[in-house]
């Protein structure tokens, strides 16, 4: 019984997160200006991190956590560098 509850909840969470990923991808592809695209990419990074955590819970595998951590760090660095590039036109001043 508990396994059915958890399996349903984790499956629902994966479907919802994939839908959110598709919506963020839509905003990244159709964003009217560059900052909308960067925001969509940043959202995609965070949702992919949550998806990795949920998949790791479903598999019972602790090592998906490290993938999620790497995605979180890469998303932060990517967004900061893209925002700096949009602000100044160059990354390192």
């Amino acid at each position: 019984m508990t396994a059915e509850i958890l399996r349903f909840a984790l499956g629902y969470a994966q479907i919802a997160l994939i839908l959110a990923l598709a919506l963020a991808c839509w905003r990244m592809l159709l964003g009217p200006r560059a900052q909308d695209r960067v925001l969509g990419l940043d959202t995609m990074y965070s949702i992919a991190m949550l998806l990795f955590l949920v998949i790791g819970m479903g598999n019972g595998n602790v090592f998906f956590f490290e993938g999620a951590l790497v995605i979180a760090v890469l998303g932060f660095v990517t967004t900061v560098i893209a925002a700096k590039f949009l602000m100044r036109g160059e990354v390192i001043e």
Partner: protein
Amino acid sequence: MRHLEQLPPWAAIIVALFVVVGATLTLLGGVGLVRLKSFYQRLHAPTLGYSYGTLLIVLASMLMFSLTEGRAVVHELMIGVFIMITTPITMLMLGRAALRRDRDRKLGHDEDVPPRHHAVPPDDDPQGDA
């Protein structure tokens, strides 16, 4: 899938509730990211996923792995603390970049318009009062 049967029912219900609510709030943030009208409104939408989604899913993962492995598993807190520190930085930098780009577009030197070239060097002021 054997590890899912090891959880007691109260923990299964709590974990399922946290995961479902967190994923639904993240999906709501994605819907807001598509449907809101201006960029400064859209900047607020995905923070639902950053705050509530990360908090609830990290708590559910910590609870589940702590009960299945029989010891305290707290390394998911690293992701939570990292997201809590870095999200305001990224959002502030993105908002400031958007403000600057909007101001530049109003002044007429955005990427749509070719950049203006100075007809005179900036230090060659004809009035001489600058």
